[in-house]
């Protein structure tokens, strides 16, 4: 059976499972549509949160982002700590209290706690900006994965993906999404770890990639640490060592913090904790979510660094046992004819790996041409430039099954896993968007007297609208698709997280404080990002060139969310101190969410 048929079968089976769940888990009420009837087991919710959280970027790109970073892999640890440490904040500071509050959306809590329709509306705006920018990347991920593995156009892939999400999100709401995400988690984690185990076994003799990362490099004889070997090989070719220290601790600190508090402030993640039966379940469920997330996140740096070493020793065969430059580079002829290198050809065809024999010597020299020491060596040996002109981040994950010569069904599984990662995150985001529209806008302000049935219908129509818009944006991605991470995390960190935290931990912060705090956080963070990335991300409109020399106090636009959050807290406390304290019933509300007892009856299903 050829690879294409195999991909089709495996992806087809997973899609059939998702549709089956959609038929089984139809939502009958708004409580089921928004919060799965608050009857989801904490372990199942943890798994669903894992899939909800881990996007196409986590699955396909993160390992490569870490391993191929020009400043070295260590500096990118911000992603690993930031995207997991946020769950500690969720478990300790937000999830249990918001579950006790017992309603359906994040803006609803902000509106009730700060007794203000304006605060609720502002939260809806933040939520929609955050979630819409985020969902574009997911829809692209679906289209690209289809295009790469199933030989159909990106656009066609996008339509198919949107139709699948439509089936389980519109009919099943949160209930359908939850159980589909559980299935999607299982698919994506198997797809990620199987190739990782094999590459770890090959490079370090270690079954667990987490131990392989700190183990010894086996092909070179086994007496050198894997990381030391990787550092040696890449520095020999003029690249920065994988474990090189960061050049700016301040930036790494602020970036990690932005990702952490941004994670804790992402609405589509928070609403997952509304679905468990009890407050105690919300706490433990955050722990389970991190268990399932950590399974991928502790493997990712191993996958990335091992794939990078593998690729580098492929380009310089002598590097396996000795020094790369003591031998010749790989020959064009070997790439064409050696069956063990067939994956190089495969990925060249996709354009993710591009090679060009610039000096026509029949060999492909891979090195850092920007490094002066390497330029000297190159001049001496007659090289005219780095001949591996492109290594896409995604290849560090996608090519692994072929590099490790794993059977075709593993490759098919990786395709299904990438689709599961993108679809599950898209569905969670779409639910956050549609519930903000039907519950916060329609029921909350436009038509408060809407019936239960009417609201359920409104929720389904909003979901359909959100899917149509997300699909359109996926088909016509605005130029700024790559910048969305900065915006989504920065805004979540600077607006929603501080508002929620102050709403729970302070009885004194009032309406005026919260609204002004959110506004300042929103405007400050967005403006700082726009200054460097272009106003509203329109190319060519950036006020300053996006280079460290231009940053205020050296703070990159990616890290600015932390500062925005501090400003939000500061403004909110200051303004609250000089304006009227919140009314009695709001203080009572704060006291009631701090006590777990009485979170409301769960709905079994």
């Amino acid at each position, binding site marked *: 059976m050829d690879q294409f048929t195999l991909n089709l079968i495996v992806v087809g089976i997973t899609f059939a499972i998702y549709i089956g769940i959609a038929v089984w888990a139809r939502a009958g009420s708004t409580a089921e549509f928004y919060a799965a009837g608050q009857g989801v087991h904490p372990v199942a919710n943890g798994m669903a949160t894992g899939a909800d959280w881990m996007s196409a970027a986590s699955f396909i790109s993160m390992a490569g982002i870490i391993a191929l970073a020009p400043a070295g*892999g*260590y500096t990118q*640890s911000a992603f*690993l*700590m930031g995207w*997991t*440490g946020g*769950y*500690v*904040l969720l*478990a*300790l*500071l937000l999830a*249990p209290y918001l579950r006790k509050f017992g309603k359906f959306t994040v803006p609803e809590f902000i509106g009730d706690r700060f007794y203000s329709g304006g605060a609720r509306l502002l939260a809806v705006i933040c939520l929609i900006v955050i979630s819409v920018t985020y969902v574009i990347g997911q829809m692209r991920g679906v289209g690209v994965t289809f295009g790469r593995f199933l030989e159909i156009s990106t656009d066609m892939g996008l339509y198919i993906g949107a139709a699948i999400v439509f089936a389980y999100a519109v009919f099943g709401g949160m209930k359908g999404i939850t159980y589909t995400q559980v299935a999607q988690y299982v698919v994506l984690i198997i797809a990620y770890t199987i190739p990782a185990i094999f590459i770890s076994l090959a490079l370090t003799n270690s079954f667990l990639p*987490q*131990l392989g*990362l*700190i*183990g*010894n490099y086996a092909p070179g004889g086994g007496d050198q*640490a*894997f*990381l*030391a070997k990787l550092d040696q090989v890449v520095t020999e070719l003029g690249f920065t060592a994988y*474990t090189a*220290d*960061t050049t700016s*601790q301040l930036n*790494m*600190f602020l970036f*990690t*913090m932005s990702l952490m508090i941004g994670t804790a402030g992402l609405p589509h993640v928070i609403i997952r904790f509304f679905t468990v039966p*009890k*407050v*105690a379940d919300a*706490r*433990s469920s*955050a*722990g389970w979510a*991190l*268990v399932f997330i*950590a399974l991928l*996140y*502790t493997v990712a*740096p191993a996958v990335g660094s091992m794939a990078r070493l593998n690729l580098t020793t492929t380009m310089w065969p002598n590097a396996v046992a000795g020094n790369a430059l003591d031998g010749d580079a790989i020959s064009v002829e070997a790439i064409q004819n050696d069956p063990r290198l067939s994956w190089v050809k495969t990925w060249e065809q996709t354009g993710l790996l591009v090679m060009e024999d610039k000096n026509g010597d029949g060999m492909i020299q891979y090195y850092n041409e920007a490094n002066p020491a390497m330029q000297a060596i190159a001049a001496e040996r007659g090289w005219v430039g780095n001949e591996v002109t492109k290594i896409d981040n995604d290849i560090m994950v996608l090519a692994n099954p072929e590099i490790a010569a794993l059977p075709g069904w593993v490759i098919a599984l990786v395709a299904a896993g990438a689709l599961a990662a993108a679809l599950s995150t898209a569905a969670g985001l779409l639910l956050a968007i549609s519930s903000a529209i039907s519950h916060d806008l329609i029921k909350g302000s436009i038509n408060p007297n809407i019936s239960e049935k009417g609201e359920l219908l409104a929720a389904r129509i909003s979901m359909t609208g959100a899917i149509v818009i997300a699909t359109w944006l996926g088909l016509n991605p605005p130029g700024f698709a790559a910048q969305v991470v900065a915006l989504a995390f920065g805004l979540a960190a600077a607006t929603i997280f501080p508002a929620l935290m102050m709403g729970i*931990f302070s009885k004194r912060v009032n309406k005026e404080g919260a609204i002004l705090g959110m506004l300042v956080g929103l405007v400050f963070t967005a403006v700082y990002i726009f200054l460097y990335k272009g106003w509203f991300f329109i190319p060519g409109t950036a006020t300053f060139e996006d280079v460290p020399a231009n940053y205020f106090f050296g703070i990159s636009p990616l890290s600015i969310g932390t500062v925005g959050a501090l400003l939000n807290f500061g403004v909110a406390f200051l303004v609250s101190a000089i304006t009227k304290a919140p009314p*009695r019933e709001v203080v*009572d*509300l704060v*006291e*009631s969410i*701090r*006590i*777990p*007892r*009485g*979170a409301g009856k769960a709905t079994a299903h």
Partner: protein
Amino acid sequence: MVDRTGHVTSDRTSSNAYWSANVRIILISLAIWFACSFGLGILLRPALEGIMVGGADLGFWFAQQGSIYVFLVLIFVYAWLMNRLDRQYGVDE
């Protein structure tokens, strides 16, 4: 929704004590959260040079592996401590 306005004072004292116990546990947990990631993983890395975990230096290991394991333990210990506290104060479900 629990309206506590009409309740006797002992009830309020008890829930205040519950809340301050909770805040204390949160502060200790956050100190650990900060120490393993921002501390060992970033700020103290240069100072810890030479201490190895297998083939990785301690700071690097905490940044790419260790802090995640600490986070995990932290959440489950917090959940366990809070369940105990909930029962102690009779506010469990």
